[in-house]
């Protein structure tokens, strides 16, 4: 198997007309108020999205009948300045508990004025979803990983 090269990060910056404590609060404890309802991988219809507010906290969805489905976990919890979350959804749209296979997103909350916050967002390390050390069956099952690896290869030659 070819070596997997780094896939470029996804980056976005937005300005929120609110204090950074509030912005951090809404991004984390209030994640259910802004998460798109169709971005869900559980077997039950989505009831709510939860981000536990501490380092190591779970990020998960709860279905209308109570079933919980993990998405990732909090790696860095520094309110109100910084947050890093592991994205542990693999190529089969299932939760993969191995952090070595997870990408991650970082969110920085920078105070521009007492009531305006610049939010810098980066989702990085997509290549970790494709791990060269896995067996072939794993590779076949992980369509997403293959796609990422192929994308990495095409990005390198482009």
């Amino acid at each position, binding site marked *: 198997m070819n070596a997997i090269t780094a*896939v*470029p990060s*996804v980056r*976005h910056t*937005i*300005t*929120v*007309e*609110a*204090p950074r404590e*509030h*912005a951090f609060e*809404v*991004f984390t404890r*209030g994640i259910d*108020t*802004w*998460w*798109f309802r*169709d*971005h*869900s*991988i559980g077997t039950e219809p989505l009831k709510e999205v939860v981000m536990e507010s501490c380092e190591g906290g779970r990020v998960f969805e709860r279905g209308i009948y109570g079933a919980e489905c993990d998405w990732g976990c909090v790696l860095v919890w520094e309110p109100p300045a910084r947050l890093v979350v592991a994205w542990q959804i693999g*190529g*089969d*749209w299932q939760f993969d508990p191995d952090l070595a296979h997870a990408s991650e*997103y970082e969110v920085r909350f920078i105070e521009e004025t007492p*009531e305006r916050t610049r*939010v810098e*967002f980066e*989702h990085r390390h*997509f290549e970790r979803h494709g791990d060269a050390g896995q067996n072939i069956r794993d590779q*076949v*099952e992980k*369509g*997403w990983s*293959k*796609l*990422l690896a*192929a*994308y990495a*290869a*095409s*990005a390198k030659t*482009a």
Partner: protein
Amino acid sequence: MKTNLKLRVQALGDPTRMAIFERLERGPLAVGEIARDLPVTRSAVSQHLKVLKDVGLVTSQRAANRQIYRIDADGVAGLRDYFDRFWQESLQSFKHAAEKSFKEKSR
């Protein structure tokens, strides 16, 4: 997540299609060349190629009376674009929720 990405992942969930995709990662090929080292018929390979083409993973071109298949670089690059759009829309939604709740709080 009813997106092209999901369709692509599903398309590659089939082991034969994955094998075809992997062969094309090494370079463009005609149907006969792909079928030669796979335990499936040529017409089955054509069917699988059609699925890969429909979801934007593979593209084809006629050359010297043969149809040559290759990986669709735009389709594969679309994966990162998917996340780009996903977060762009989600962050806008976050911004609106944060500003609305702040206004309500400070009222």
